[in-house]
């Protein structure tokens, strides 16, 4: 199954929910949806054969003012689908980072939603155990993966010592 064919099938599966579908580098398909429909989309994708969340990525577009939440779905059981990763992406505003959890559809998203919560401060409504997983609570409050948390990496390659 070529990527184009998969895109067609996803289009017919999701109908109007899919706002935009892009193919990146032949094996990564990014499907843009709306925040409101995410649960329905996830349910349909799971029935379609994408049975687990490979990873949950949040990208901070600080200048544009939104977070892009991407559930990268993969398949274990279906050999043809397992070649592809489908990223279900939707945007939420930076100043109100609240969204719905997919924990009850994809159990594999459990810790990853906690990670997104600690690193970006995104609240997943309905997640039963939303607390930091890697960071300690005081550090998690700084939301370290947001772009406005700046890490000072010494860019200077010329030293003045000695």
């Amino acid at each position: 199954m070529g990527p184009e064919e998969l895109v067609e099938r996803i289009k017919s599966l999701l109908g109007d929910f899919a706002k935009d579908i892009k193919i990146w580098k032949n094996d990564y398909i990014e499907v843009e949806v709306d925040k409101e429909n995410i649960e329905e989309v996830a349910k349909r994708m799971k029935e379609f054969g994408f049975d687990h969340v490979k990873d949950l990525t949040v990208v901070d577009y600080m200048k544009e003012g939104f977070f892009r939440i991407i559930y990268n779905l993969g398949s274990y059981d279906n050999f043809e689908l397992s070649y592809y990763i489908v990223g279900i992406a939707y945007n939420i505003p930076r100043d109100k980072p609240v969204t719905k959890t997919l924990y009850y559809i994809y159990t594999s998203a459990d810790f990853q939603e906690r990670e997104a919560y600690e690193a970006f401060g995104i609240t997943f409504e309905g997640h039963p155990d939303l607390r930091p997983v890697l960071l300690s609570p005081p550090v998690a409050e700084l939301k370290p993966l947001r772009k406005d948390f700046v890490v000072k990496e010494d860019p200077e390659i010329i030293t003045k010592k000695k």
Partner: protein
Amino acid sequence: MPAKPVNKQVPSKGGIFSKFKGNIEAIAIGVKFFFNPQRFTLIYPKEYIKLKEGYRGFIVLRKDKCINCGSCARICPAAAMRLIRLPFTDPKTGKTRMKLWPVINYNRCIFCGYCVDVCPTEALYHVPYHDVVYETMDIMDLDLEMFQKEPEWDTEKLGLPVKYVVDEKMGLIKVKIKEEGEKQ
């Protein structure tokens, strides 16, 4: 030809006989190694491993080859390599100019060897050892003069050089290297 999945089975649980056999086998192999231990321990300060050529150990600068390009400092992932501005007198023209020279901070170095690989004139090279002792953290931050010397390797004075050779029976065997490079 791609990989193919193959279904496998764990051995069945078996009865008392297979349990008995398992116990006997375990004890037998224990006894076998008890009488023939096959060890290859390195007795460290008394022996040391003479590492192979190409080992990424400490880094030394050949100043005469350096063209002051700064690539090494730019590629250093740990920010251990830095450039320092020092006057340099050109032996041909006799003019003195300020130039940028690399210096290394071994507090930070991770021995990835990118600097050596990226150097366009092979002005940097690895010495094949890594067990060097510095007395304080300060002197690990080398200056240009120290950076040109191979660090002092005390292990060499204390012990005998050995090397490990991959062997079919033992895995690794310890081979003593004689002074002249003869093998025992």
